């Protein structure tokens, strides 16, 4: 085997890339994982993880220089002082916004698995059947029964804490013990159940934070500093979970600073033979060869790589023969919800910082619930006691004010919706050859927007949030509904969808590119629809399933 030849290449090292590397190496394949950014070593490189709040010069805030340096990241919460190094530079890696799209990226080993929200939910059959029933886009080529064992497999390894709630819309998984709801959340949950006669539920979030020790990882210490990288390895990330497992096989090579510019396609065999890499530090170009290629560069960048590949055969790139590559870009739309004040339990507080909240699964368009839009939405929220803030003019400066600052304020309950976005052919990414990044590579152009169905859904997301909080006895309920730009959900999906027909989809039921069967795409780009649950657990399950199929197909000489 020559130096640049492996059994498998994995492009990207985030949630799905890490899983691909783990599965393929554990099955004995010599694998190279290519990551476009720097290395971040577990624990050692989590430089801010053990700092106290007062050690940050601006206490976590954002400076004007940061705002100038990150014109996209500044649009939402990710721009902050404490984990700035984990976010890709908007200036080094610009993109074109035909319509505004907030693209928040992590270009380093581990990708966004270091900063993700960790909420982990299974999809149900209603989600996999939705496109067929509604007659939109294309049907998923798989059903819940096809992926259910892989959900279990992913959950058992990743470590998902949660309660077995027995809900049809949100199938139970192989969970670790759940985190606890606080007294107010428990009360609100009970009142909601009574008010809606068990048609709506409020459950503790199911999260990829382990609650018991697991695979040499320490259980969650309730620091709520997950996005700094966890020195205990208590939440699932490439670094805490899949990378050590893959390294332990002795079969993995990790190459940081490796921007994959294209997949090398062999017209004669109709298969990929490897990839071309631009070294981000030296600007040198290299080629790597393998029997199979897993594309896990994140939804938009995976589409970019495919669109850049085999352009001498297909003008639109590898996988474009259906006309769907780069199309059907989805996200979850959010920024709409409600909050209010809860009276009572003034003698109760909580100790520890729980990096989790409650979840209200979808209820819209299920059972007797009928709406003027299709699909639905879920909510994430929590109850907590505010900092002290009584509006008494005489108590706003001086010694009494200073004393009062040490007391907790009233209980607040808040929640925000996550709405399903439909796959629209004209929500798309393309390559913009007129603009180049730091390495002289053409950038992506993103052209996507929310449409009528999502806009109608947002009205319901706002009014239902208010109605539910009020039904639970929450006072002074105020709603919010921000400008609904796509991207903010950081759940990009759909640019290389799975399907049953090569004429209308990019990937088959095993995540294989129809036009090159030894290329597997298993990140968010594979998604045929978006549902409203957080998608990462589904990427993990799809990746493990596809890797298993890839190795079986290799053994049978099918690819």
């Amino acid at each position, binding site marked *: 085997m020559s130096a640049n030849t492996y059994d498998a290449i994995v492009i990207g090292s985030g949630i799905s890339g890490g899983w691909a590397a783990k599965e393929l190496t554990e099955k004995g394949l010599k694998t190279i994982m290519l990551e476009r950014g720097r290395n971040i070593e577990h624990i050692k490189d989590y430089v801010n993880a*053990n700092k106290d709040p007062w050690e940050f010069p601006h206490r976590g805030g954002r400076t*004007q220089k940061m705002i100038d340096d990150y014109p996209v990241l500044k649009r939402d919460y990710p721009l902050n002082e404490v984990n700035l190094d984990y976010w890709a530079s908007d200036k080094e890696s610009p993109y074109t916004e035909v319509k505004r799209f907030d693209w928040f990226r992590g270009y380093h080993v581990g990708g966004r698995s270091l900063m993700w929200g960790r909420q982990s939910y299974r999809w149900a059959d209603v989600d996999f059947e939705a496109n067929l029933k509604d007659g939109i886009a294309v049907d998923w080529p798989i059903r819940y029964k096809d992926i259910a064992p892989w959900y279990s497999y992913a959950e058992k390894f990743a470590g998902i804490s949660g309660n077995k709630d027995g809900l049809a819309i949100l199938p139970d998984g192989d969970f670790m013990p759940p985190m606890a*709801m606080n007294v107010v959340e428990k009360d609100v949950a009970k009142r909601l159940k009574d008010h809606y006669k068990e048609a709506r539920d409020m459950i503790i979030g199911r999260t990829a934070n382990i609650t018991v020790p697991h695979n040499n990882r320490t259980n969650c210490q309730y620091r709520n500093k997950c996005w700094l990288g966890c020195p205990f390895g208590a939440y699932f990330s490439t670094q805490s979970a899949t990378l050590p497992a893959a390294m332990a096989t002795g079969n993995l090579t990790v190459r940081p600073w490796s921007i994959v510019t294209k997949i090398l396609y062999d017209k004669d065999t109709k298969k990929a033979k490897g990839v071309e890499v631009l070294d981000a530090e030296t600007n040198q170009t290299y080629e790597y060869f393998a029997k199979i290629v897993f594309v896990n560069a994140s939804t938009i960048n995976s589409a970019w790589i495919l669109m850049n590949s085999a352009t001498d055969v297909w003008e639109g790139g590898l996988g474009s023969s259906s006309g769907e590559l780069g199309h059907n870009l989805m996200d979850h739309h959010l920024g709409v919800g409600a909050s209010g004040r809860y009276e009572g339990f003034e003698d109760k507080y909580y100790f520890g910082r729980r990096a989790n909240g409650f979840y209200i699964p979808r209820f819209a368009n299920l059972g007797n619930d009928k709406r003027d839009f299709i699909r639905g939405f879920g909510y994430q929220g929590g109850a907590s006691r505010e900092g002290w803030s009584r509006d008494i003019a005489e108590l706003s400066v001086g010694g009494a004010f200073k004393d009062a600052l040490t007391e907790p304020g009233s209980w607040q309950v808040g929640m925000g919706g996550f709405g399903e976005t439909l796959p629209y052919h004209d929500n798309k990414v393309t390559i913009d050859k007129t603009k180049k990044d730091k390495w002289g590579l053409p950038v992506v152009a993103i052209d996507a927007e929310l449409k009528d169905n999502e806009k109608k859904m947002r009205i319901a997301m706002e009014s239902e949030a208010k109605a539910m909080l009020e039904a639970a006895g929450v006072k002074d309920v105020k709603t919010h509904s921000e400008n609904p730009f796509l991207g903010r959900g950081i759940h990009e999906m759909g640019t290389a969808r799975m399907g049953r027909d090569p004429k209308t989809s990019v990937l088959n039921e095993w995540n294989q590119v129809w036009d090159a069967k030894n290329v597997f795409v298993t990140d968010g780009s594979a998604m045929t629809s978006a549902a409203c649950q957080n998608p990462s657990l589904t990427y993990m399950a799809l990746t493990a399933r596809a890797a298993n199929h890839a190795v079986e197909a290799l053994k049978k000489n099918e690819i």
Partner: protein
Amino acid sequence: MHRRTAIRNLALIIGGAALLPACMQEKGKPSIALKNVDLNADQEKLVGDIAETIIPKTSTPGAKDLGLHLFVLKMLDDCYKKDDQQAFITGAGQFTDAVSKKYDKLFADLSAKQREEMLLSIEADKDPKSTTFPKELKTFYGIIKGQTVNGYTNSKYFMTRQVVYELVPGRYNARFPYKQKQSA
């Protein structure tokens, strides 16, 4: 620059300085280096006196003991837009004028009670349309108040001695009993 021109310019600057009235002379630099805000030692002292009125030294440390006024200035220098920084400087002057008009004194020379009374009158002026105090004065005060409280509640002293912050709680108690402190 030619040496001769440089000497002539230097002479002009020195000469000009000699002609300026005493109150316009160099007032001394602030005690921390600021990159974007041109603030003098008197203004720094004013910020310190206001912060100390908001979080006074009692049986526990006050704003000056904890360096909160310097935190206010660091935040002003790094985290605010040019417009706000400019308004802060303008507002500082307006604040001194307002104090002078009401008490015929500098803020530093007021009694503790008068200082509180002055700040409370600004706090009470909440209506954005009100013209009791100029806009810049309210920006000036608002930044000091917000960042003094931010600095205090995120200080090591507050988080370790006033409330119980632990870097590694290790557990989540969802039903923790709480008894309100008996405030004086």
